[in-house]
């Protein structure tokens, strides 16, 4: 039963793929502005990593920041 469900799902995905596979709608030559510093999520890894460290050692939440963690310095 489970196999049948999975196969049905795959079939549906394949059908959708054949029907309407979206094409990239922003062409490479239109992406010039996206390289501008004001459109970067992180402009300076050094400063962002330090800021995340400041919050991580003072708040209970952590993770999913998009910035790699380092050592502790937690206590």
């Amino acid at each position: 039963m489970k196999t049948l469900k999975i196969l049905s799902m795959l079939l549906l995905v394949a059908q959708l793929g054949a029907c309407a596979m979206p094409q990239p709608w922003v062409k490479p030559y239109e992406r010039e502005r996206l390289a501008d510093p004001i459109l970067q999520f992180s402009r300076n890894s050094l400063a962002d990593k330090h800021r995340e460290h400041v919050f991580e050692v003072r708040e209970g939440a952590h993770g999913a920041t998009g910035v790699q963690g380092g050592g502790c310095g937690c206590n």
Partner: protein
Amino acid sequence: MAPPACKGAVVAATSLWKRLAGLLGSLLAVGGAKAADLPPDETDAMVHVYDGGGVRASGPVLLVRKKLADRVSVSGQYYVDMVSNASIDVVTTASPYKETRNEFTLGADYAYRDSVLTVSGSSSREPDYTANTLNFDVTQEVFGGMTTVAMGFTRGSDKVRKHGDDTFQDTAHHWRYRLGATQILSPRWLMSANFEAVSDEGFLGSPYRVARVFGAAVPERNPRTRTSRAIKFRTIAEVTPGTAVRAEYRYFWDTWAIKAHTAEFGASRYVRQAWLVDGLLRFYSQQHALFYSDNAAAETAYVSRNRQLGTYKGVSLGGKVTYSMGKVQGRYDVKLSGVYERMRYRFSDFTDIRTGALYSYDANLLQLIVSATF
């Protein structure tokens, strides 16, 4: 006109596999001619100061990054935290102290077609705490370069010791798994989603901190395992030429029953050509851990008065100014940046035992950065 395949209700098995392969192929292969970009060669130096709640942490950071051939970029980073600690925990139960934390990080990025593989390792040392981490990350551009998928793994091993007690020694281990995607929505609009699962095992508290049970001070007792999840959504867009706005939200939850919301809003604007000004506003709100208590009224297996595990709200207001000096000596693109952020934390269930009032504190964060890319 719809392809003939859409009209048929029954599809042969061979056709199904062909289509699945075609779907995957179109996702991976479109735009495959362009190689993923490696970070530029750069040298960054930063001085940082955090001052708040009786804690002052400051020091220099240095980062050097250099490409080797076209496909590999290596980096090294040295980070210093000179900490002077007279926080409320310390002044109410121990003596203020000073110590230095040094952290070294080495990393390498390898670009192959639309993928970048990153490996890095760091070692952080302070007198009573040693932490070593190893990171693996992969990014892959798909869908004609409009989508970037990222996944990564971190393994951390810590050694915990205690000043004045040579018999105390313990360990902590950390596993972090992350997955994310960034999507180009328009020529001036991006969005990303990131998920991270973290598992911690070992000594997850402080050997110095005490809890209160029936008003008496006892060593805190934390569980030796913790598993957390965090999901974050970000978006950034240029709203008028030279002006961008961004927003992000993170939800965090863990097996200690902590739930936390983080929201941040920011704006960036060019002022003349050489100046870039940023402003940000950040909100943080957290619900306490199951075993957190300001003054426990029952004996339980686990008890902590670590205010980081309590219920509180935080607000930050910050700004950044960047000045581009342009090409120096015709070769180095030099930028000078200054960042200032003011933070305020207000606790709902942590009291200052000297006054009996609910605790709150303000903090200042300052970063001065010189960055040269070439």
